[in-house]
Protein backbone atom coordinates (compact mmCIF):
# COMPACT_ATOMS: atom_id res chain seq x y z
CA UNK A 1 0.00 0.00 0.00
CA UNK A 2 1.55 3.26 -1.14
CA UNK A 3 0.25 6.82 -0.96
CA UNK A 4 3.19 9.15 -1.36
CA UNK A 5 5.48 7.25 -3.70
CA UNK A 6 2.90 5.38 -5.81
CA UNK A 7 3.58 7.44 -8.95
CA UNK A 8 7.29 8.00 -8.53
CA UNK A 9 9.68 6.93 -11.26
CA UNK A 10 13.18 6.25 -9.98
CA UNK A 11 15.58 9.01 -10.92
CA UNK A 12 12.90 11.20 -12.47
CA UNK A 13 10.92 14.11 -11.14
CA UNK A 14 7.16 14.40 -11.70
CA UNK A 15 6.77 17.71 -13.51
CA UNK A 16 3.50 19.61 -13.83
CA UNK A 17 2.22 17.61 -16.85
CA UNK A 18 3.22 14.25 -15.29
CA UNK A 19 1.50 15.21 -12.06
CA UNK A 20 -1.75 16.11 -13.87
CA UNK A 21 -1.63 12.78 -15.71
CA UNK A 22 -1.60 10.81 -12.46
CA UNK A 23 -4.59 12.74 -11.15
CA UNK A 24 -2.77 15.70 -9.62
CA UNK A 25 -4.72 18.76 -8.43
CA UNK A 26 -8.01 16.80 -8.66
CA UNK A 27 -8.26 17.02 -4.88
CA UNK A 28 -7.69 20.78 -4.97
CA UNK A 29 -10.44 21.20 -7.60
CA UNK A 30 -12.79 19.15 -5.44
CA UNK A 31 -11.97 21.25 -2.38
CA UNK A 32 -12.40 24.60 -4.10
CA UNK A 33 -15.57 23.67 -6.01
CA UNK A 34 -17.46 21.43 -3.63
CA UNK A 35 -16.16 21.76 -0.06
CA UNK A 36 -16.42 24.42 2.61
CA UNK A 37 -13.23 25.09 4.54
CA UNK A 38 -14.82 23.63 7.69
CA UNK A 39 -15.53 20.41 5.82
CA UNK A 40 -11.90 20.13 4.76
CA UNK A 41 -10.73 20.55 8.35
CA UNK A 42 -13.29 18.02 9.60
CA UNK A 43 -12.20 15.48 6.97
CA UNK A 44 -8.52 15.81 7.89
CA UNK A 45 -9.33 15.56 11.57
CA UNK A 46 -11.29 12.38 10.94
CA UNK A 47 -8.35 10.87 9.04
CA UNK A 48 -6.20 11.14 12.21
CA UNK A 49 -3.22 12.17 10.06
CA UNK A 50 -0.30 12.98 12.37
CA UNK A 51 2.65 15.29 11.81
CA UNK A 52 5.50 13.41 10.11
CA UNK A 53 8.24 15.73 11.33
CA UNK A 54 8.68 13.82 14.56
CA UNK A 55 6.24 15.10 17.16
CA UNK A 56 3.18 13.40 15.64
CA UNK A 57 0.66 16.14 16.49
CA UNK A 58 -2.71 15.79 14.77
CA UNK A 59 -2.79 17.85 11.56
CA UNK A 60 -6.57 18.27 11.73
CA UNK A 61 -6.43 19.71 15.26
CA UNK A 62 -3.71 22.17 14.27
CA UNK A 63 -5.74 23.37 11.28
CA UNK A 64 -8.89 23.60 13.39
CA UNK A 65 -7.24 25.93 15.93
CA UNK A 66 -6.08 28.31 13.21
CA UNK A 67 -9.26 28.00 11.12
CA UNK A 68 -11.46 29.11 14.03
CA UNK A 69 -9.31 32.20 14.72
CA UNK A 70 -10.84 35.46 13.55
CA UNK A 71 -7.95 37.45 12.13
CA UNK A 72 -7.29 39.59 9.05
CA UNK A 73 -4.04 37.77 8.21
CA UNK A 74 -3.05 34.15 8.73
CA UNK A 75 0.00 32.30 7.45
CA UNK A 76 0.63 28.79 6.22
CA UNK A 77 4.16 27.36 6.33
CA UNK A 78 5.55 24.11 4.98
CA UNK A 79 8.60 22.93 6.90
CA UNK A 80 11.14 21.36 4.56
CA UNK A 81 14.14 22.26 6.69
CA UNK A 82 15.07 18.62 7.06
CA UNK A 83 18.46 18.38 8.75
CA UNK A 84 18.23 15.42 11.11
CA UNK A 85 21.32 13.34 10.31
CA UNK A 86 20.42 10.22 8.35
CA UNK A 87 17.15 11.60 7.03
CA UNK A 88 16.40 12.26 3.38
CA UNK A 89 12.65 11.76 3.04
CA UNK A 90 11.51 15.40 2.64
CA UNK A 91 14.44 16.13 0.33
CA UNK A 92 13.46 13.15 -1.87
CA UNK A 93 9.83 14.29 -1.80
CA UNK A 94 10.84 17.76 -2.98
CA UNK A 95 13.04 16.33 -5.72
CA UNK A 96 10.64 13.65 -6.97
CA UNK A 97 7.22 15.15 -6.51
CA UNK A 98 7.17 18.85 -5.56
CA UNK A 99 3.54 19.32 -6.67
CA UNK A 100 2.35 16.81 -4.09
CA UNK A 101 3.63 19.15 -1.35
CA UNK A 102 2.26 22.27 -3.05
CA UNK A 103 -1.21 20.76 -3.49
CA UNK A 104 -1.30 19.95 0.23
CA UNK A 105 -0.20 23.50 1.03
CA UNK A 106 -2.86 25.14 -1.16
CA UNK A 107 -5.62 22.94 0.30
CA UNK A 108 -4.32 23.70 3.80
CA UNK A 109 -4.19 27.44 3.24
CA UNK A 110 -7.77 27.34 1.94
CA UNK A 111 -8.92 25.29 4.94
CA UNK A 112 -7.46 27.63 7.55
CA UNK A 113 -8.08 30.87 5.61
CA UNK A 114 -4.45 31.87 4.99
CA UNK A 115 -3.65 34.14 2.04
CA UNK A 116 0.13 33.89 2.30
CA UNK A 117 2.21 30.72 2.39
CA UNK A 118 5.92 30.01 2.72
CA UNK A 119 7.91 26.90 1.97
CA UNK A 120 10.98 26.91 4.21
CA UNK A 121 13.64 24.68 2.68
CA UNK A 122 17.05 23.60 3.91
CA UNK A 123 19.62 25.82 2.15
CA UNK A 124 21.73 22.86 1.00
CA UNK A 125 18.93 21.20 -0.99
CA UNK A 126 19.83 22.82 -4.32
CA UNK A 127 18.15 20.20 -6.51
CA UNK A 128 14.91 20.03 -4.49
CA UNK A 129 14.81 23.84 -4.35
CA UNK A 130 15.13 24.09 -8.12
CA UNK A 131 12.28 21.59 -8.67
CA UNK A 132 10.04 23.36 -6.18
CA UNK A 133 10.72 26.79 -7.69
CA UNK A 134 9.75 25.41 -11.10
CA UNK A 135 6.62 23.84 -9.61
CA UNK A 136 5.58 27.13 -7.99
CA UNK A 137 6.02 28.92 -11.31
CA UNK A 138 3.88 26.30 -13.09
CA UNK A 139 1.17 26.75 -10.46
CA UNK A 140 1.12 30.52 -10.95
CA UNK A 141 0.88 30.09 -14.72
CA UNK A 142 -2.00 27.65 -14.43
CA UNK A 143 -4.04 29.67 -11.94
CA UNK A 144 -3.39 27.23 -9.08
CA UNK A 145 -1.69 30.04 -7.17
CA UNK A 146 -2.23 33.80 -7.23
CA UNK A 147 -5.53 35.64 -7.45
CA UNK A 148 -8.92 33.93 -7.72
CA UNK A 149 -7.60 30.36 -7.88
CA UNK A 150 -9.71 28.25 -10.29
CA UNK A 151 -12.41 30.94 -10.18
CA UNK A 152 -13.14 30.26 -6.53
CA UNK A 153 -12.37 33.77 -5.20
CA UNK A 154 -9.61 32.23 -3.08
CA UNK A 155 -6.24 34.05 -3.28
CA UNK A 156 -2.90 32.61 -2.22
CA UNK A 157 0.67 33.86 -2.58
CA UNK A 158 3.33 31.18 -2.09
CA UNK A 159 7.03 31.85 -1.67
CA UNK A 160 10.07 29.64 -1.19
CA UNK A 161 12.52 30.62 1.55
CA UNK A 162 16.01 29.12 1.85
CA UNK A 163 17.51 28.38 5.25
CA UNK A 164 21.20 28.99 5.87
CA UNK A 165 22.37 25.94 7.76
CA UNK A 166 20.88 25.68 11.24
CA UNK A 167 19.39 22.43 12.57
CA UNK A 168 17.26 24.22 15.16
CA UNK A 169 15.34 26.06 12.41
CA UNK A 170 13.42 22.82 11.91
CA UNK A 171 11.69 23.65 15.20
CA UNK A 172 8.58 25.60 14.27
CA UNK A 173 9.07 28.71 16.39
CA UNK A 174 12.76 28.96 15.45
CA UNK A 175 11.76 28.59 11.81
CA UNK A 176 9.32 31.48 12.21
CA UNK A 177 12.00 33.67 13.80
CA UNK A 178 14.32 32.84 10.91
CA UNK A 179 11.61 33.83 8.40
CA UNK A 180 11.13 37.12 10.22
CA UNK A 181 14.80 37.98 9.67
CA UNK A 182 15.84 37.23 13.25
CA UNK A 183 18.27 34.77 14.78
CA UNK A 184 16.76 31.31 14.39
CA UNK A 185 16.29 30.78 18.11
CA UNK A 186 13.19 29.04 19.43
CA UNK A 187 10.50 31.07 21.18
CA UNK A 188 8.98 30.43 24.56
CA UNK A 189 5.76 28.40 24.24
CA UNK A 190 2.94 29.17 24.82
CA UNK A 191 1.86 31.07 22.82
CA UNK A 192 2.05 28.39 20.15
CA UNK A 193 2.39 29.40 16.47
CA UNK A 194 -1.30 28.51 16.02
CA UNK A 195 -2.13 31.45 18.28
CA UNK A 196 0.73 33.81 17.60
CA UNK A 197 3.19 32.77 14.91
CA UNK A 198 4.72 34.59 11.96
CA UNK A 199 4.58 38.35 12.59
CA UNK A 200 2.41 37.48 15.65
CA UNK A 201 -0.41 36.17 13.44
CA UNK A 202 -1.99 32.70 13.64
CA UNK A 203 0.27 30.36 11.69
CA UNK A 204 0.20 26.71 10.66
CA UNK A 205 3.57 24.98 10.35
CA UNK A 206 3.40 21.50 8.80
CA UNK A 207 6.09 19.08 7.72
CA UNK A 208 6.35 18.44 3.96
CA UNK A 209 5.63 14.71 4.19
CA UNK A 210 2.48 15.36 6.23
CA UNK A 211 1.20 17.80 3.61
CA UNK A 212 1.92 15.35 0.80
CA UNK A 213 -0.74 13.03 2.30
CA UNK A 214 -3.50 15.65 2.18
CA UNK A 215 -4.53 15.33 -1.49
CA UNK A 216 -4.89 11.54 -1.19
CA UNK A 217 -7.10 11.88 1.90
CA UNK A 218 -9.39 14.40 0.16
CA UNK A 219 -9.71 12.16 -2.89
CA UNK A 220 -10.12 8.81 -1.20
CA UNK A 221 -11.74 9.88 2.05
CA UNK A 222 -10.65 10.02 5.67
CA UNK A 223 -12.25 6.64 6.41
CA UNK A 224 -10.06 4.87 3.86
CA UNK A 225 -6.93 6.57 5.24
CA UNK A 226 -7.74 5.70 8.84
CA UNK A 227 -7.95 2.01 7.85
CA UNK A 228 -4.27 1.92 6.80
CA UNK A 229 -1.64 1.07 9.38
CA UNK A 230 -2.42 1.15 13.10
CA UNK A 231 -5.73 2.62 14.36
CA UNK A 232 -4.03 5.24 16.57
CA UNK A 233 -1.22 5.90 14.12
CA UNK A 234 -2.70 5.50 10.63
CA UNK A 235 -1.26 5.88 7.15
CA UNK A 236 2.08 5.19 5.56
CA UNK A 237 5.51 6.53 6.41
CA UNK A 238 8.66 7.23 4.46
CA UNK A 239 11.67 5.48 5.96
CA UNK A 240 15.22 6.54 5.13
CA UNK A 241 16.99 3.24 5.62
CA UNK A 242 20.79 3.20 5.71
CA UNK A 243 23.68 1.29 7.24
CA UNK A 244 24.33 -2.44 7.26
CA UNK A 245 21.44 -3.50 5.00
CA UNK A 246 21.57 -4.96 1.48
CA UNK A 247 19.65 -2.15 -0.27
CA UNK A 248 19.82 1.17 1.61
CA UNK A 249 17.23 3.65 0.33
CA UNK A 250 13.91 5.38 0.80
CA UNK A 251 10.95 3.08 1.45
CA UNK A 252 7.27 3.82 1.98
CA UNK A 253 5.56 1.35 4.29
CA UNK A 254 2.31 1.24 6.23
CA UNK A 255 2.70 2.10 9.89
CA UNK A 256 2.04 -1.40 11.19
CA UNK A 257 5.41 -2.84 10.21
CA UNK A 258 7.89 -4.02 12.79
CA UNK A 259 11.50 -2.85 12.64
CA UNK A 260 12.47 -6.32 11.49
CA UNK A 261 10.04 -6.04 8.55
CA UNK A 262 11.37 -2.61 7.61
CA UNK A 263 14.91 -4.02 7.55
CA UNK A 264 13.70 -6.99 5.48
CA UNK A 265 12.13 -4.59 2.94
CA UNK A 266 15.55 -3.01 2.53
CA UNK A 267 16.96 -6.41 1.57
CA UNK A 268 17.71 -7.61 5.08
CA UNK A 269 20.93 -7.37 7.02
CA UNK A 270 24.00 -7.15 4.81
CA UNK A 271 25.63 -10.50 4.24
CA UNK A 272 28.45 -11.24 6.61
CA UNK A 273 27.31 -8.59 9.09
CA UNK A 274 25.57 -8.85 12.41
CA UNK A 275 23.31 -6.14 13.83
CA UNK A 276 24.54 -4.37 16.95
CA UNK A 277 21.49 -2.09 17.21
CA UNK A 278 19.10 -0.04 15.05
CA UNK A 279 18.62 3.68 15.57
CA UNK A 280 15.16 4.97 14.71
CA UNK A 281 14.71 8.68 14.02
CA UNK A 282 18.17 10.03 13.28
CA UNK A 283 20.73 11.31 15.78
CA UNK A 284 17.99 12.32 18.22
CA UNK A 285 16.32 8.92 17.84
CA UNK A 286 15.90 5.98 20.18
CA UNK A 287 18.15 2.96 20.12
CA UNK A 288 16.57 -0.40 19.38
CA UNK A 289 18.62 -3.33 20.64
CA UNK A 290 18.22 -6.72 19.01
CA UNK A 291 15.62 -8.01 21.47
CA UNK A 292 13.22 -5.18 20.52
CA UNK A 293 13.33 -5.67 16.75
CA UNK A 294 9.79 -7.05 16.74
CA UNK A 295 8.37 -3.74 18.04
CA UNK A 296 6.29 -1.53 15.74
CA UNK A 297 7.59 2.04 15.62
CA UNK A 298 4.64 4.47 15.62
CA UNK A 299 3.22 7.82 16.67
CA UNK A 300 0.92 6.14 19.22
CA UNK A 301 1.01 7.52 22.72
CA UNK A 302 3.34 5.49 24.87
CA UNK A 303 4.86 3.67 21.89
CA UNK A 304 7.94 1.67 22.93
CA UNK A 305 9.71 2.96 19.83
CA UNK A 306 8.58 6.44 18.72
CA UNK A 307 8.94 6.65 14.97
CA UNK A 308 10.33 10.21 15.00
CA UNK A 309 11.23 11.40 11.54
CA UNK A 310 11.57 7.85 10.21
CA UNK A 311 15.31 7.49 9.70
CA UNK A 312 16.47 3.91 10.21
CA UNK A 313 20.17 3.31 10.73
CA UNK A 314 21.34 -0.29 11.02
CA UNK A 315 24.62 -0.39 12.91
CA UNK A 316 26.67 -3.55 12.59
CA UNK A 317 28.56 -5.24 15.40
CA UNK A 318 31.85 -4.16 13.77
CA UNK A 319 31.25 -0.49 14.58
CA UNK A 320 32.73 1.17 17.64
CA UNK A 321 29.76 2.51 19.62
CA UNK A 322 31.97 5.08 21.40
CA UNK A 323 32.83 6.74 18.12
CA UNK A 324 29.17 6.87 17.11
CA UNK A 325 28.39 8.46 20.48
CA UNK A 326 30.97 11.11 19.68
CA UNK A 327 29.41 11.72 16.28
CA UNK A 328 26.01 12.35 17.91
CA UNK A 329 27.31 14.71 20.54
CA UNK A 330 29.56 16.54 18.06
CA UNK A 331 26.45 17.26 16.03
CA UNK A 332 24.38 18.59 18.94
CA UNK A 333 27.25 20.64 20.33
CA UNK A 334 27.70 22.30 16.94
CA UNK A 335 23.99 22.87 16.39
CA UNK A 336 23.14 24.12 19.89
CA UNK A 337 22.01 27.69 19.26
CA UNK A 338 23.54 29.17 22.41
CA UNK A 339 20.37 30.77 23.73
CA UNK A 340 20.19 28.81 26.98
CA UNK A 341 23.10 27.88 29.25
CA UNK A 342 22.25 24.22 30.00
CA UNK A 343 22.31 23.32 26.32
CA UNK A 344 25.20 25.56 25.23
CA UNK A 345 27.51 24.47 28.06
CA UNK A 346 25.99 21.04 28.63
CA UNK A 347 26.57 19.74 25.12
CA UNK A 348 30.09 21.20 25.22
CA UNK A 349 30.95 19.41 28.49
CA UNK A 350 29.31 16.22 27.33
CA UNK A 351 31.45 16.33 24.21
CA UNK A 352 34.68 16.55 26.19
CA UNK A 353 33.59 13.65 28.40
CA UNK A 354 32.82 11.47 25.37
CA UNK A 355 36.14 12.50 23.82
CA UNK A 356 37.87 11.20 26.94
CA UNK A 357 35.82 8.01 26.69
CA UNK A 358 37.05 7.47 23.12
CA UNK A 359 40.68 8.15 24.03
CA UNK A 360 40.46 5.87 27.08
CA UNK A 361 40.83 8.61 29.75
CA UNK A 362 37.30 8.26 31.14
CA UNK A 363 37.35 8.19 34.96
CA UNK A 364 35.09 8.10 38.02
CA UNK A 365 34.55 11.89 38.03
CA UNK A 366 33.49 11.81 34.40
CA UNK A 367 31.00 9.11 35.23
CA UNK A 368 29.37 11.26 37.92
CA UNK A 369 29.37 14.37 35.73
CA UNK A 370 27.91 12.42 32.85
CA UNK A 371 24.81 11.47 34.82
CA UNK A 372 24.36 15.01 36.13
CA UNK A 373 24.73 16.45 32.65
CA UNK A 374 22.22 14.03 31.19
CA UNK A 375 19.69 15.04 33.83
CA UNK A 376 20.31 18.73 33.20
CA UNK A 377 20.03 18.47 29.43
CA UNK A 378 16.94 16.31 29.74
CA UNK A 379 15.07 18.57 32.16
CA UNK A 380 16.22 22.16 32.05
CA UNK A 381 16.88 23.26 28.48
CA UNK A 382 14.74 25.91 26.81
CA UNK A 383 13.75 23.90 23.74
CA UNK A 384 13.73 20.20 22.83
CA UNK A 385 17.25 20.25 21.32
CA UNK A 386 18.83 19.67 24.72
CA UNK A 387 16.49 16.77 25.38
CA UNK A 388 17.21 15.31 21.94
CA UNK A 389 20.95 15.39 22.54
CA UNK A 390 20.71 12.72 25.25
CA UNK A 391 17.92 10.45 23.97
CA UNK A 392 20.28 7.93 22.42
CA UNK A 393 22.83 8.29 25.24
CA UNK A 394 20.14 7.45 27.81
CA UNK A 395 19.34 4.29 25.84
CA UNK A 396 23.02 3.36 25.72
CA UNK A 397 23.03 3.51 29.54
CA UNK A 398 19.63 1.80 29.89
CA UNK A 399 20.74 -1.19 27.82
CA UNK A 400 24.22 -1.23 29.44
CA UNK A 401 25.96 -1.02 26.08
CA UNK A 402 29.15 0.61 27.38
CA UNK A 403 30.72 -0.91 30.47
CA UNK A 404 32.36 2.35 31.69
CA UNK A 405 28.93 3.94 32.28
Amino acid at each position, binding site marked *: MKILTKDWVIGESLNFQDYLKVGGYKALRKVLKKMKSTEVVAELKKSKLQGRGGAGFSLGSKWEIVATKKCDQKYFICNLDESE*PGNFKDKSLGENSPHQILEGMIIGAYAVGASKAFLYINGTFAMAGQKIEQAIEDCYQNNLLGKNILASKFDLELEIFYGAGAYICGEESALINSLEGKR*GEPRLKPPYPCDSGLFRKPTVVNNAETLANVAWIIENGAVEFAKIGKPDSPGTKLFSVDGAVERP*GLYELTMDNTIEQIIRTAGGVKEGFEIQFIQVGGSSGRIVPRFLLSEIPSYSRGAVIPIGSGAILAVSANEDLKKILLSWINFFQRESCGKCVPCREGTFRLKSIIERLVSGDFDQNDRQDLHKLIWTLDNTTFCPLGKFSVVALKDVIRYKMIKEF
Partner: protein
Amino acid sequence: MTIQEILLQHEPEKKNILPAIKAINQNLSWVSEEAIGKIARYFGESEAYIFSVASFYDEINFNKPALLTLEICDGANCQIKDSDNIIKNVETFFKIKVDSFNNQFVLKRMSCVGRCLEGPVVKINGTIYTKMTTDKVIELIQNYLGY
Protein backbone atom coordinates in the same frame (compact mmCIF):
# COMPACT_ATOMS: atom_id res chain seq x y z
CA MET B 1 28.00 42.35 -8.46
CA THR B 2 28.58 44.93 -5.73
CA ILE B 3 27.03 44.76 -2.28
CA GLN B 4 24.67 47.59 -3.16
CA GLU B 5 23.49 45.91 -6.35
CA ILE B 6 22.68 42.72 -4.45
CA LEU B 7 20.84 44.66 -1.75
CA LEU B 8 18.71 46.48 -4.31
CA GLN B 9 17.36 43.13 -5.54
CA HIS B 10 15.64 42.72 -2.16
CA GLU B 11 12.74 44.79 -0.85
CA PRO B 12 13.78 46.37 2.47
CA GLU B 13 11.39 44.17 4.50
CA LYS B 14 12.41 42.23 7.58
CA LYS B 15 11.79 38.85 5.94
CA ASN B 16 14.38 39.67 3.26
CA ILE B 17 17.25 40.20 5.72
CA LEU B 18 18.44 36.58 5.66
CA PRO B 19 17.99 36.17 1.87
CA ALA B 20 20.04 39.34 1.35
CA ILE B 21 22.82 38.18 3.69
CA LYS B 22 22.84 34.81 1.91
CA ALA B 23 22.99 36.41 -1.52
CA ILE B 24 25.99 38.54 -0.51
CA ASN B 25 27.70 35.54 1.04
CA GLN B 26 27.12 33.52 -2.13
CA ASN B 27 28.21 36.16 -4.61
CA LEU B 28 31.24 37.50 -2.76
CA SER B 29 32.09 34.27 -0.83
CA TRP B 30 32.01 36.14 2.48
CA VAL B 31 30.29 38.90 4.45
CA SER B 32 32.71 41.67 5.40
CA GLU B 33 32.32 44.33 8.10
CA GLU B 34 31.67 46.80 5.32
CA ALA B 35 28.84 44.58 4.02
CA ILE B 36 27.31 44.31 7.51
CA GLY B 37 27.25 48.11 7.68
CA LYS B 38 25.57 48.43 4.30
CA ILE B 39 22.97 45.75 5.08
CA ALA B 40 22.19 47.47 8.40
CA ARG B 41 21.65 50.83 6.74
CA TYR B 42 19.54 49.32 3.97
CA PHE B 43 17.16 47.50 6.32
CA GLY B 44 17.16 50.24 8.98
CA GLU B 45 18.60 47.96 11.68
CA SER B 46 21.71 48.27 13.84
CA GLU B 47 24.97 46.65 12.72
CA ALA B 48 24.91 44.56 15.90
CA TYR B 49 21.49 43.21 14.98
CA ILE B 50 22.55 42.24 11.45
CA PHE B 51 25.72 40.60 12.73
CA SER B 52 23.78 38.68 15.39
CA VAL B 53 21.44 37.31 12.72
CA ALA B 54 24.17 36.50 10.19
CA SER B 55 26.48 34.85 12.71
CA PHE B 56 23.69 32.46 13.74
CA TYR B 57 23.87 30.50 10.49
CA ASP B 58 26.61 28.04 9.54
CA GLU B 59 26.63 28.99 5.87
CA ILE B 60 27.73 32.59 6.39
CA ASN B 61 31.50 33.36 6.31
CA PHE B 62 32.99 36.34 8.11
CA ASN B 63 36.55 35.76 7.07
CA LYS B 64 37.91 36.11 3.61
CA PRO B 65 37.67 32.47 2.55
CA ALA B 66 40.79 30.36 2.57
CA LEU B 67 42.05 29.07 -0.75
CA LEU B 68 40.40 25.80 0.09
CA THR B 69 37.66 24.96 2.59
CA LEU B 70 37.10 21.26 3.11
CA GLU B 71 34.05 20.17 5.10
CA ILE B 72 33.53 16.53 6.00
CA CYS B 73 30.19 15.15 7.20
CA ASP B 74 30.51 13.52 10.63
CA GLY B 75 26.89 12.34 10.94
CA ALA B 76 26.45 8.77 12.18
CA ASN B 77 25.60 7.55 8.66
CA CYS B 78 28.79 8.94 7.11
CA GLN B 79 30.75 7.98 10.19
CA ILE B 80 30.00 4.27 9.76
CA LYS B 81 31.08 4.73 6.15
CA ASP B 82 34.49 5.80 7.44
CA SER B 83 34.29 9.61 7.36
CA ASP B 84 36.12 9.76 10.69
CA ASN B 85 39.19 8.07 9.23
CA ILE B 86 39.14 10.45 6.26
CA ILE B 87 39.28 13.40 8.68
CA LYS B 88 42.22 11.81 10.54
CA ASN B 89 44.10 10.95 7.36
CA VAL B 90 43.64 14.44 5.91
CA GLU B 91 44.87 15.88 9.20
CA THR B 92 48.07 13.85 9.11
CA PHE B 93 48.69 14.11 5.38
CA PHE B 94 48.38 17.91 5.23
CA LYS B 95 49.59 18.53 8.80
CA ILE B 96 46.51 20.58 9.80
CA LYS B 97 43.87 20.29 12.51
CA VAL B 98 40.08 20.39 12.34
CA ASP B 99 38.76 23.92 12.95
CA SER B 100 42.17 25.60 13.02
CA PHE B 101 42.43 28.76 10.97
CA ASN B 102 44.85 29.06 8.10
CA ASN B 103 44.48 31.19 4.97
CA GLN B 104 45.48 28.31 2.70
CA PHE B 105 43.39 25.41 3.87
CA VAL B 106 40.55 25.12 6.39
CA LEU B 107 39.20 21.75 7.55
CA LYS B 108 35.78 21.56 9.22
CA ARG B 109 33.20 19.04 10.30
CA MET B 110 29.82 19.47 8.65
CA SER B 111 26.25 18.46 9.50
CA CYS B 112 24.16 16.10 7.39
CA VAL B 113 23.14 17.35 3.92
CA GLY B 114 20.76 14.45 3.24
CA ARG B 115 22.99 12.57 0.78
CA CYS B 116 23.55 9.71 3.26
CA LEU B 117 23.10 6.96 0.66
CA GLU B 118 26.11 8.29 -1.25
CA GLY B 119 28.29 8.77 1.82
CA PRO B 120 30.84 9.66 2.97
CA VAL B 121 30.02 13.19 1.82
CA VAL B 122 32.50 16.08 1.68
CA LYS B 123 32.14 19.66 0.56
CA ILE B 124 35.00 21.55 -1.07
CA ASN B 125 34.53 25.30 -1.46
CA GLY B 126 30.77 24.74 -1.43
CA THR B 127 30.65 21.88 -3.96
CA ILE B 128 29.42 18.53 -2.67
CA TYR B 129 31.36 15.36 -3.49
CA THR B 130 29.99 11.92 -2.64
CA LYS B 131 31.26 8.36 -2.14
CA MET B 132 34.61 9.63 -0.91
CA THR B 133 37.68 7.74 0.23
CA THR B 134 40.86 9.11 1.74
CA ASP B 135 42.69 8.76 -1.59
CA LYS B 136 39.95 10.52 -3.55
CA VAL B 137 39.79 13.40 -1.06
CA ILE B 138 43.56 13.89 -1.10
CA GLU B 139 43.56 13.86 -4.90
CA LEU B 140 40.74 16.44 -5.01
CA ILE B 141 42.54 18.71 -2.55
CA GLN B 142 45.76 18.53 -4.55
CA ASN B 143 43.86 19.41 -7.73
CA TYR B 144 42.25 22.40 -6.02
CA LEU B 145 45.54 23.61 -4.57
CA GLY B 146 47.27 23.05 -7.93
CA TYR B 147 50.02 20.70 -6.72
